[in-house]
């Protein structure tokens, strides 16, 4: 098997991995499978090497078509990363049907590398990361192997181009394979260390979004959860197992209180305004926009006077793929919230909801402390004039329910304390009377969905139950609001976190049972709720639980690595210096303001910095050289001469130091015990070197022992001889080194 044949399979694997990465990131499985099949077919038909089975004009035409499509998409303003990946995939498929010399493979590999990068940009899941981790070593090995193949094929091209007989393709040699694997392994190890170093030291949060919307992908808004509820839609609700968030629940002592079977309601939004089947939020005017600084808690509500913090519950949230605007979930009732990365938040202290208004798309981490608190919604509790529901039929049903439960339906005469009993009565009624179903029947046109649910349908999903309860309570003057969020029921004992999926989205009700005191009620039948949200215990559940834990670790430590994590890694201070922080911030600000002079300034500053460094380097070199010379002392001390004459002779004999340096550089330093002339004759480096060395030594003798000046012709001769000797010794290592002998730059 030749080296080129050995590469063929590896090349196909790399291309298929890149295609799989594309599928994982974009979920375009059908397209990716077609592309993979086409790539494999093309590979099988063209792996012979230099022959093409598809005419060049056809492959070129297809590529130009793909380019034209890309340009069209760009002009239409729809060119994003997934679209670019699609373009790359198309070109790769065409390329796999082309001939397969090293040049073609290098193009295919380059395109595959771009596709992997595009996939990484599109999706940050663990699977994408695993794919990257698998692809990189294979690509490194493949690229190194490709250099070997390319060298041979280039020689073939040159020789054949001249009409000569090409050398045979080199066979695969185990020795070559071992060396290649070793080179790839060391390159990978070094590359991994260096890349991690770069990964860690690169400052974050600088320059984000400076280029508009370009590359602003990588975040997916949370689905399954909604800040509004629209009733009346028919069809089956499909549940997605996509991860929405992860939550660790701890008590005041920091002990993890999560356990399998224990359910938490994670609230995200409230709705208290109903209009023809649609629930919306009426209290937006009470939102306060605040700047949340990283690590600094935001107070959401006051702790109930007299209550201790020992009952507090701390929740650590990780939203794996948060959009710019995202509700910040938490357990009832939230006292404070702390973001790990600073952002603008909208805090509503009436319904105790917090929404991040702006921030970096991607992983989001924050902590919520919940406990007994007092919410103030600004309403007077004398009676609730604003609490009402626009449906006489709903009011009628509510009255019937309360009458059956012996609770006064008229809010004018009913004491506040009876509101909780009213809520409990309605909850029980709905749980016992109605059936939970994801398969929703259509609501007749013109009919209110809640009325339809109460009178006709009698079955529905959680939003119907919560809507009905909220409507029923509000119609009899009980202050209630609908809440949407998630049910955290899937506890992962490996990671100690609740894994909350999109399918865990849920709706329930909050009722003000006393002034400022709200309590949660869930009218959905509890058995159904557990069946719906608690994962069944199966043979594979442990395995998938482990995968979830690994993915959580991946998102937490790699994808979610941010400036706070970086600083924490370096003991809270980080490796950056204050002046560096100031400078980068200034650059960021100027870039943000669109400073046109930034590039010019950067170039000018760079040039000045380079010149400064070069000047400093030269000065250091000059000083070091002088010091070395001073440390060595003079070559010898001419006796019986004045200081000026001594200096003149020493200066004249300076060429001898160059001669010694040349000998040392060539691997034959002059031993201390040997005279220059003898050493020159012993060099055994060819006649030219010996003659030049001998002549220079003789001239040195004339100066040193004869104490005579060199004539201008002799000085010119010295310069010429030194130049010739340097040229003759360039790149040579003279044999006959004498180990153990000390080199000398002193005259003997």
């Amino acid at each position, binding site marked *: 098997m030749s*080296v080129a044949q050995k590469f063929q399979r590896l090349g196909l694997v790399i291309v298929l991995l890149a295609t799989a990465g594309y599928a994982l990131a974009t979920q375009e499985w059908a397209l990716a499978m077609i592309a993979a099949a086409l790539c494999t077919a093309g590979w099988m038909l063209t792996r012979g090497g230099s022959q*093409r089975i598809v005419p*060049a004009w056809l*492959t*070129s035409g297809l*590529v130009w078509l793909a380019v034209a499509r890309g340009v069209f998409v760009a002009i239409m303003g729809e060119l994003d990363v997934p679209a670019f990946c699609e373009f790359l995939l198309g070109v790769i498929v065409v390329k796999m049907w082309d*001939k397969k*010399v090293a*040049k073609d493979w*290098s193009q295919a590999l*380059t395109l595959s590398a771009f596709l992997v990068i595009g996939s*990484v*940009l599109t999706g*940050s899941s663990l699977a*994408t990361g695993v794919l*990257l981790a698998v692809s990189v070593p294979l690509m490194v090995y493949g*690229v*190194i192997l490709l*250099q*070997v193949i*390319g*060298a041979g*094929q*280039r*020689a*073939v*091209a*040159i*020789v054949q*181009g*001249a*009409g*000569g007989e*090409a050398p045979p393709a*080199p066979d695969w*040699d185990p020795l*070559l394979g071992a*060396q290649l694997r070793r*080179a790839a392994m060391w*390159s990978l190890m070094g*590359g991994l260390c*260096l*890349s991690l170093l*770069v990964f860690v030291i*690169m400052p974050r949060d*600088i*320059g*984000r979004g*400076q280029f508009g919307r*370009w*590359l*602003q*992908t990588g975040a997916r808004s949370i689905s399954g959860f909604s800040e509004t509820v629209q009733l009346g839609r028919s069809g089956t609700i499909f549940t997605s197992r996509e991860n929405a968030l992860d939550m660790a629940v701890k008590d005041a002592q920091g002990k993890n209180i999560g356990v399998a079977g224990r359910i938490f309601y994670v609230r995200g939004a409230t709705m208290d305004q109903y209009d023809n089947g649609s629930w919306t939020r009426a209290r937006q005017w009470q939102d306060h926009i605040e700047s949340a600084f990283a690590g600094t808690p935001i107070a959401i509500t006051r702790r109930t006077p007299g209550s201790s913090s020992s009952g507090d519950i701390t929740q650590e949230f990780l939203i794996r793929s948060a959009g710019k605007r995202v509700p910040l979930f938490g357990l009832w009732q939230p006292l404070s919230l702390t973001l790990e990365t600073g952002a603008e938040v909208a805090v509503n202290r009436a319904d105790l909801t917090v929404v991040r208004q702006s921030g*970096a798309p*991607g992983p989001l981490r924050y902590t919520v402390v919940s406990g007994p608190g007092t919410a103030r919604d600004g309403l007077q509790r004398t009676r609730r004039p604003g609490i009402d529901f626009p449906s006489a039929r709903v009011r009628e049903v509510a009255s019937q329910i309360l009458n059956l439960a012996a609770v006064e339906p008229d809010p004018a005469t009913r004491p506040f304390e009876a509101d909780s009993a009213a809520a409990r009565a309605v909850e029980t009624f709905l749980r016992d009377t109605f059936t939970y179903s994801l398969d929703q029947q259509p609501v007749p046109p013109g009919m209110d969905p809640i009325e339809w649910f109460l009178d006709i349908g009698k079955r529905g999903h959680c939003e119907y139950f919560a809507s009905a309860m909220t409507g029923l309570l509000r119609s009899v003057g009980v202050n209630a609001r609908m809440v949407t969020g998630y049910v955290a029921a899937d506890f992962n004992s490996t990671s100690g976190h609740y894994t909350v999926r999109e399918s865990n989205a849920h709706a329930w009700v909050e009722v003000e049972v006393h002034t400022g005191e709200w309590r949660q009620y869930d009218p959905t039948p509890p058995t159904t709720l557990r069946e719906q949200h608690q994962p069944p215990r199966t043979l594979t559940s442990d395995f998938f639980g482990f995968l979830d834990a690994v993915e959580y670790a991946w998102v937490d430590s*790699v*994808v979610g690595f941010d400036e706070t994590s970086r600083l924490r890694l370096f003991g809270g201070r980080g490796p950056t210096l204050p002046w560096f922080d100031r400078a980068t911030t200034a650059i960021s600000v100027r870039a943000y303001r669109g400073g046109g002079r930034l590039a010019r300034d950067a170039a000018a500053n760079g040039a000045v910095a380079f010149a400064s460094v070069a000047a400093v380097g030269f000065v250091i070199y000059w000083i070091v050289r002088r010091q070395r010379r001073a440390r060595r002392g003079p070559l010898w001390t001419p006796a019986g001469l004045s200081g000026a004459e001594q200096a003149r002779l020493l200066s004249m004999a300076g060429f001898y130091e160059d001669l010694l340096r040349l000998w040392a550089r060539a691997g034959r330093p002059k031993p201390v015990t040997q005279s220059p002339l003898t050493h020159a004759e012993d060099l055994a480096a060819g006649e030219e070197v010996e003659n030049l060395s001998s002549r220079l030594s003789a001239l040195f003798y004339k100066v040193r022992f004869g104490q005579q000046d060199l004539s201008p012709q002799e000085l010119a001769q010295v310069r010429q001889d030194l130049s010739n000797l340097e040229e003759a010794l*360039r*790149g*040579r290592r003279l044999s006959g080194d004498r180990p153990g002998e000390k080199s000398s730059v002193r005259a003997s």
Partner: protein
Amino acid sequence: MPLRKPQRGSGAAQASTAAVETDGAIGMAVDVAVDPESTEIRWPEDAAMRIVSRRYHLHFPGLVYIATTVMLAFGAVQSQNNLLFWAFGIAVAGLLISGIVSGSALMGLQMARLGVSESPVGRTTFMRYALRNRNRFFPAMALNIEELDVNSDPAPGAKSDPRVAPLSLPAGACELVAARTVVDCQTRALAKRRGRGSLRRVRVWTTYPFGLTRKSVTFEGPKSILVLPHVPRLKNGALDRILGADQRGVLTAATRGVSDEFWSLREYQIGDPTRSIAWKASARSGQLIVRQTAALTPVRLWVRIGELTDEAFETAVTLAAGMIRQADELGWSMGLWIPGSGVLIVPGQGQRHVHSLMRALAVASPRSLARASGAGPKSGDAVISIVGGRVSQEAQGGRASIGVDDAAELLEKGESLTPAPAVKARERSGLWSLLAGREAGGS
């Protein structure tokens, strides 16, 4: 220097013999003794070439890589995507490792010329080298080897002129020179025109490990080369037809040997084959007599090239080479006489003799100041004179003439006086060449 083992050059393992066995390659002039049976290559210290330069060349793939790295940096900063930061780290690491590994790999490389094959025009010539990697850790891989100067002037340092160069530019590759080893590798080139020439500088370059930069080391070591003339195949019996089958020379019974020619009779001795008994003579003499045969003296053929114009002289040299080839296959003795060039080689046999004839033809010129010395054709020797124009007269007494204009008629079908290239030049496809840059076949 510990001398280890084997080479990994392209087909270089059999380099010492491959050149001889390859069709048309007459011989390999090996300057340094290499034992073809041995797996160890001795580093020829005396033939070590001088390093004249080391260079880094940024080429197209490297520029693309740097542009991609910059884009990754922008992308990472813009999107704050951590995987992109990691990808950027990998890209930066790739650049650093590429610089370190590639620089180190070539830093300890040394080169020596081992020899150059002497091939006829139209055939492939092989240049052999020893490559030594003095580096302790880093192997040198994916090495491209290219001769930079092929001069028609044998004097070292002469200016290169590719139009009259005897060879195309030799190129080759060596997959691996492991750390602290010496390997044997080779380059190949097409022999383009006969005559002497010289090689001077060799560039060894690599894009290992990642193809981002091209690093090169240029070595200098003059070497003379010789390209033999094109050797066409003549029609079967062409020489017999030129000389005339009965005129091609006298078979002289000079000594006893094995043939059909009678030499003498003698008495039977024990051990003589019964088939050699001359029964009639035995009957006549009354005792057993055996018949002895004469040894044949091969035809002694002189090929003589007369005074010719430059163009005709080239044709004559090619024709002479073809004649020598056929005569050698027939087992004749061959001699060469070119009065104008001072060449006179008496007839002889064997590969060595053929090679000396080819070498003489390689350097022969129509007008030379040298004059031939020594004895020319003897009586009984066959002589074919190659002269200008066409010749109509028939051979007489083993002397024949052939005109250069008649040369084409002597060639076997498919042969020509000017060799056809062994392989057609590679095709170039449009778009991919554009995408890949200008380097044909570059990776």
